[in-house]
């Protein structure tokens, strides 16, 4: 029996294995004399790649909420921001403005996830009964309220500057810049893959079937004796906690948080990635996110070779992004790799 035959065949195990390999490789780069040497042309790929795996956690959480349970959360960025700010405020040392308590980062990261889950429960318990489009509006408005709070309470959140001096655990142990980028990408990518394995397990279990039943027809699901509200709350909180984890990791990678990282653009990117790939399919939503973030890369390169300004290019990119969202909903409502029957949409 060869090694190949013993490789796991189901998606969850494959993702877990790949994630574990990434984490080990990342640890090797960070902790041993192993060095990475990257051509400078690759830097931009690694940078966008790191952002992609962080957003990957966000899209997996959102897909749990919308793709599986049908909860239209249009304020996902707020959970990302809460996780990031909590982690940053607890762990930052010598921050320029706002609170920096200087606790160890693992504690801060864990607290970030817990606080985000609690905030998620708070938002969920108040608004989850609302009809889809109204839930979208409430979550969107909640995100705007939080954004305004982060900007205005300068003594606490550092205003527009944000919280600086957040520890960067990987940068602290990596030998040089190239190795650090490689290790960061591998470690965060590993976390995302392990998370992918976890949510795949969860949604392939009977639990996931209940979630999808709620999405398809809540009344019927309730009539067979499932407490749909409990399931919806759990799904919402899991999604929020994942976004909190993404936020905490982002803060620890970036070394700083500021309101500018947590705008509605993040929510829109995640949503388009999810709808483009195909909601309710974990690997599809990651692929959709890759496409939409690939567009970002493409426009950066195009910027270098065309004479027009950055502003013009940013506008053009957003026009394309907006029209992709419109086109997907009209022509491929189940997304590229989504299952039309399962989502109950006609196309």
């Amino acid at each position, binding site marked *: 029996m060869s090694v190949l035959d013993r490789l796991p065949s189901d998606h969850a195990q494959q993702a877990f294995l790949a994630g574990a390999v990434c984490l080990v490789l990342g640890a090797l780069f960070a902790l041993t004399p192993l060095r990475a040497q990257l051509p400078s042309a690759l830097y931009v790929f690694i940078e966008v790649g790191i952002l992609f795996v962080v957003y990957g956690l966000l899209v997996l959480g959102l897909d749990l909420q919308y793709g599986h349970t049908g909860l239209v959360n249009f304020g996902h960025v707020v959970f990302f921001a809460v996780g990031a700010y909590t982690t940053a405020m607890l762990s930052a040392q010598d921050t320029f403005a706002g609170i920096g308590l200087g606790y160890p980062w693992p504690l801060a990261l864990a607290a970030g996830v817990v606080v985000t889950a609690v905030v998620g429960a708070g938002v969920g318990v108040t608004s989850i009964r609302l009809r889809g489009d109204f839930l*979208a509006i*409430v979550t969107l408005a909640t995100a705007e309220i939080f954004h305004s709070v982060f900007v*205005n309470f300068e003594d606490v959140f550092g205003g527009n500057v944000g919280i600086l001096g957040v520890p960067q655990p990987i940068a602290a142990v990596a030998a040089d810049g190239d190795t650090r980028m490689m290790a960061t990408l591998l470690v965060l990518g590993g976390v995302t893959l392990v998370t992918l394995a976890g949510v795949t397990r969860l949604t392939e279990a009977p639990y996931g079937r209940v979630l999808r039943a709620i999405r398809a027809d809540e009344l019927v699901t309730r009539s067979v004796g499932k407490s749909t509200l409990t399931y919806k709350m759990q799904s919402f909180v899991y999604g929020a906690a994942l976004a909190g984890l993404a936020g905490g990791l982002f803060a620890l990678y970036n070394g700083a948080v500021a309101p500018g990282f947590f705008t509605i653009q993040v929510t829109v990117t995640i949503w388009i990635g999810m709808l483009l790939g195909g909601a309710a399919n974990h690997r599809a939503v990651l692929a959709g996110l890759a496409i939409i973030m690939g567009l970002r890369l493409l426009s950066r390169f195009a910027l270098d070779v065309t004479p027009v300004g950055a502003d013009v290019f940013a506008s053009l990119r957003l026009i394309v992004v907006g029209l992709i969202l419109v086109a997907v*909903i009209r022509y491929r409502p189940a997304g590229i790799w989504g299952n039309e029957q399962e989502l109950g949409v006609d196309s």
Partner: protein
Amino acid sequence: MGLSQNVVFGLVTGSYIAIAAIGFTLIYGIVNMINFAYGEYLTMGAFIGLLAVTMLPVPLPVAVLLAMAGGGVVSLVLARGFFTPINQTGPVPLLLTSIGLGIALRSAIRLVAGRSARYYDTDTVTYRFDSLPDLTVGSVDLLGGFFVTSEHLIVIGAAVVVFAVLHALLTRTDVGIAMRAMGDDESLARVRGIDTQRIRDSVWVLAGVLAGLAGVLIAIQTNVSSDTGFSHILQILSAAILGGAGSPYGAILGAYVIGLVLALSTAFLPSGLTGLSSAVAFVILVVVLLVKPSGIAGKEVREA
């Protein structure tokens, strides 16, 4: 600055929010969608008016009419092109489509008009009411000196005219009565022989006309940039939902509540936190949806 000055500002803000919120709420009530791109219709109306004033050039009242006409055309064309084809898919796809369309429109406007804010040059005449008696009770300045500019009067006056015309439209004309019938029960309206597609189109045109007007009024009052509409959409939404989504009269009431709360909150918030006043409209929105989602005068929005 006395509290009464804040009341003036609140009435002005309430007036243009009300004009926009009526259009927004009619779309909600009759097409059954939350149109997030609606803010961009305001921006386009404001720019059409600005172009008319500076390029053609025409007097301001003519420019306002052109902006209203332009808003109506834009609204109908976008509805036919983007929203009518997916009418049957339910409220969430419609909302998401409008968000995508809004992003595309806003970026397209920025591409053409740039980032900077533009101003209407209207010969400002400021009527001062400083000489009114100063009524002071305790430390609360009830009626301190305040001023009203001609722009303030234009905005408030336009709102009053709009309310009168709207009321006449909804109660005296066939189209308006059909709109109300559709808002109440669409299938019943269809059975009674109302051409629902034609009424829908009329609603889109009417909403666009109101958006064009509101856009010009905002621009006269402050300025216009590619973000003008987007920065007002949540206030418009808040007004419509506070009044009860789908109810035009509720939207008027909701808009003045939002306008006054916004203006007065700047007086009561501690200095340094006045930036929070923009969040006040969103707090109202969230609270209303959670406590009384049907608003002051609207239909039920919770699921059965």
